[in-house]
């Protein structure tokens, strides 16, 4: 299967790869929200982290790591780009369909975009829970 130019670009030059600490550290950091979604046996695991500026409430930095195919890597790389500069609630507005469109994902790869949306939601929910902010909507299930 041929990948789109944008998928290849994100795959070859992934943006914002990394972590704001070890698993233990990021669990404890209140300014960091972590979303870990997918499962190794499904062939996709995404870890998305957001770092929120307390004063402005904006996502000042985002990082990802991904075990998955090229489209999964590109979807999570793109998600970190889109999250930066948004407030957490603005982050929730990112839809998987926008990722599909931006990366020209074929139908068999739509689940990669769904997983990226899940990761965004999970990271934001984690941040809110850590900071005692009530979640406005239930976590996305599929």
């Amino acid at each position, binding site marked *: 299967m041929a990948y789109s130019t944008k998928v290849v670009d994100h795959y070859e030059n992934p943006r914002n790869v990394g972590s704001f600490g070890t698993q233990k550290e990021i669990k404890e950091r209140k300014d960091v929200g972590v979303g870990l979604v997918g499962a190794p046996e499904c062939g996709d695991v995404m870890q998305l982290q957001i770092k929120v500026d307390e004063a402005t409430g904006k996502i000042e930095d985002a990082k990802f*790591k991904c075990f998955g195919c090229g489209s999964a890597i590109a979807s999570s790389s793109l998600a970190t780009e889109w999250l930066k500069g948004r407030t957490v609630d603005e982050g929730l507005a990112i839809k998987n369909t926008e990722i599909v469109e931006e990366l020209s994902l074929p139908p068999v790869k739509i689940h990669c975009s769904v997983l990226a949306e899940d990761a965004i939601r999970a990271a934001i929910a984690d941040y809110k829970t850590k900071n005692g902010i009530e979640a406005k909507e239930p976590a996305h299930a599929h």
Partner: protein
Amino acid sequence: MSLKLPIYFDHAATTPCDPRVVEAMLPYFTEVYGNPGSRNHSFGWAGEAAVDTARDQVSNLIGADRKEVVFTSGATESNNLAIKGGAQMYAKKPAGSTGRGHVITATHEHKATLDPCKRLQKEGFDVTFLEPGRDGIITAEMVKNAMRDDTILVSLLWANNEIGTINEVPEIGALCHDRGVIFHVDGTQWVGKMPTDVNAAQIDLMSFSAHKMYGPKGVGGLYVRRRRPRVRLTALAEGGGQERGFRSGTLNVTGIVGLGKAAELASQEMTKDADRLRKLRDRIETTVTEKLDTVQINGHREKRLPHMTNISFGFVEGESLMMACKDIAMSSGSACTSASLEPSYVLKALGVGDDLAHSSLRLSLGRWTTEEEVHYATNKIIESVEKLRVLSPLYDMHNEGIDITKIEWAAH
């Protein structure tokens, strides 16, 4: 020698045609085009002579009598003819009834065996799907334990197409002949690569394909034993009665000539090829296991084909690994493109975890594989695994001492 990219390491999927095979085939497109079924003129006789030569070349390769070779369109058709045609012929009860007979195969067979067997289940036959051990091998003991009074057919691969492991074919052949059970072997990956003697291995039916042994696509054959026992089959394709009535249809003379030539070359070159490729394959395995941690070679280490390897690189997904090595053609047990998200059922049958099945690559080398290609590909794979592990959250967890099998992953 200069390295030419991309590199082809997918010879278990198909092989290039040997130029000597193509040369042998060429006259049969435009000059010698008679139908071997035309018994009344020289054009037909020339076609028949060409087919006879090919039949000799093929029967020499497998230790059979020339009359025991039935030409088909390839191993999938041969498997269908052997399994469905065999079961129909040896059924204990007529169509429409249940309990028509028992068939033994294995869970990690090729789909061209599994699907005909599933068809038999719908048509009143019982089928046992044997589960291999972790080494991927089906032993005579496993077959023996599954045998019943009404067992009519055993159908197994000689060597598995994903991991190259070799089943205990001669031992199973002896067992089947003891019990009067027909033994079908899918020799697609084996024939032309490894020494084959249908009598020594006591095989009754054996499928093979030209395009896996440097011949053309679209042609293959089924060995059908004529003596002790004389095996009968219900034909699937009926018509002109060609190939002793087992397979009607005008013979693909050009393709058959190609298969014959490929078989002749295989007889002469397989030992040399196998020795050379085993060394190259071993070098790949030694280097990747030296340079990378958490690497697993799937299937029995010795009892497998010398020219292929199936390796799982922990914490790296196979499809993204192939994308990183885009100038190397390989296969992966990852099924990221399939709707089911299910990884290789062959690796699962061996008890390889789903995560490691998603992380697997199959590399299969061939007659023209060079040392330079092996060197380049090995380095490229190592470099790509390292790159992807930087990206892998699972590798981080592994390094932090977290057992990823203990995490409650959300299924999706």
